[in-house]
């Protein structure tokens, strides 16, 4: 941070700078929410409920990891929630023709990746905004999933060990999420892929001048997001034990994008962190679970969540201005 808060000691200034980071403010709000829910409802910090919160948190956080990469390079994927629903049916159908489940999982991930590749190629080669490409994909994939499933749910395949590993054990989904967060943090901060993603979003002309392969990086991020979407769908299918053609959808996509933006990813691109997506997802999960425990009416619940997301985003942009790094 270059900007100094005048008249403070070094330690206080550092604390001030830390608090201006988007992740920090979200952590503070999350802790406050946990305290509030624990006081209001003695069951919040029990083992069973922490497990439930972790399950609320895991899926949006994994999806956020992809969307954050896309948002940073000024793209978005609206159809990731539909890939989430499609992937388990691909797995189930491939398994039905006597392919072992692990291979069927790989097949589902391959199809997810291909969808991301198609989105990327259409967006880049035909010059269509990804908002539009993925809006079209959203409907297309929904239809595909309903056709394949004939509109009926199915049972998730696989023996107990694989099923537990892939999501049925209470904490396996959040462990997967944390591993993916760690890997994607490494990618964003410590590889050329991540650095160039930030460069493209920050200044596409300068990136082209420097010789960065803009199209390849963007397409890679589309493939990544779709693959993570499909993977999250598989985890949820194994956790729940059944496959629902209407699972995921725009709801999970929105929670993923919101996690990222609440955690400080700039919608205008050029800035964002994976850790921010994790803390954003935790805040949303804590709210979702806490208000459910409070027994709030489902309609009121959406009003509260929507309002909270708006407030968090406004606070985020305002803090970015205070830091002198945001829109002026």
């Amino acid at each position, binding site marked *: 941070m270059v*900007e100094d808060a005048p008249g403070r000691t070094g330690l206080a200034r550092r604390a001030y700078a830390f608090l201006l980071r988007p992740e920090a403010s979200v952590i503070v709000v999350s802790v406050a929410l946990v305290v509030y829910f624990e006081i209001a409802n003695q069951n919040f910090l029990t083992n069973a409920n922490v497990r439930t919160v972790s399950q609320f948190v895991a899926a949006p956080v994994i999806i956020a990891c992809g969307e954050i990469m896309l948002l940073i390079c000024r793209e978005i994927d609206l159809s990731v929630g539909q890939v989430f629903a499609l992937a388990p049916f691909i797995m189930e159908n491939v398994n039905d023709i006597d392919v072992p489940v692990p291979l069927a999982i790989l097949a589902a991930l391959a199809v997810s990746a291909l969808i991301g590749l198609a989105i990327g190629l259409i967006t880049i080669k035909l010059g269509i905004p990804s908002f539009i490409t993925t809006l079209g994909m959203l409907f297309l994939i929904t239809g595909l999933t309903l056709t394949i499933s004939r509109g009926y749910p199915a049972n998730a395949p696989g023996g107990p060990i694989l099923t537990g590993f892939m999501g049925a054990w209470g904490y396996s989904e959040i462990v997967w999420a944390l591993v993916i967060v760690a890997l994607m943090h490494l990618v964003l*901060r410590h590889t*050329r892929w991540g*650095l160039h993603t930030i*460069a493209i979003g*920050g*200044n596409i002309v300068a*990136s082209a001048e*420097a010789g960065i392969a803009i199209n390849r990086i963007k397409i890679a991020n589309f493939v990544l997001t779709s693959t993570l979407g499909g993977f999250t769908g598989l985890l949820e299918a194994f956790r729940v034990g059944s496959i629902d053609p209407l699972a995921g959808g725009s709801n999970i996509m929105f929670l993923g994008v919101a996690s990222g933006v609440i955690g400080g990813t700039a919608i205008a691109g050029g800035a964002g962190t994976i850790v921010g997506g994790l803390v954003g997802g935790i805040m949303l999960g804590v709210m979702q679970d806490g208000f459910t425990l409070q027994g709030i009416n489902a309609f009121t619940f959406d009003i509260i969540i929507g309002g909270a997301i708006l407030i968090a985003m406004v606070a985020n942009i305002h803090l970015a201005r205070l830091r002198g*790094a945001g829109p002026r």
Partner: protein
Amino acid sequence: MSEAPRGMVEAIRAENIVKSFGHVVALNGVSMQVARGETLGILGDNGAGKSTLIKILTGYHQPDAGQVYVDGKPVQLASVDDARALGIECVYQDLALVNGLSIYHNMFLKRELLWGGPLKLLDHRAMRRRAAAALEEIGVAIPSVDVEVGQLSGGQRQAIAVARAVFSNARILLLDEPLAAMGAREARLIIDLIDRLRARGDIAIVMIAHNYAQTLEICDRVILVQHGEVTFESHAATTSAEELLDIVRREYRAARSG
């Protein structure tokens, strides 16, 4: 045409460059040359052909006729990469840097240092150290190479952009309006930097500018481009801004009566 000063080695030369876009003749037989350790100023109004000339020297446009020489050898600059491979680099004031990235990331953009073997992780520490050393070597003072470029002033950003070009082995530097929209203190930063680069003796600098007095102060030689032709060329020390203004005024009068 005035020759490069005695004892200096010619870096780049353009001879009788012609370039048209449709019916518009942007350059009608322009010649110029600059030596290592020399700074050439290109003056002229908007639309006079300065930018077209620079874009031909950076390989962005190809001339219809004429020849470019680098180190005395004829070259074909078919692309920006061709020019870059010959050590020609153009620094644009606002297009060159990524605001959201640190100074050292910008200095190493697309030329990152890596470690970790097959993992190919970014070697932040080495990049930080080498960027700081490179900036210190050419006398660009900044608090820390960790600072985001977006937090710097216009003059500091321009200095970083120039430093990056030199750092990436550019030896023929083309500066497009390096002092535009800068206060006196900011401009001083860049003028001092240009002076230091000239003193090294291995870099040729060509700068496009609007401000006659400032350009005469910075450069060794100036040329004036008007409607696609070089109409005046002289050593800066023996030229006054009034002299240049007179030539431009005459053109305006001719345009009005014509």
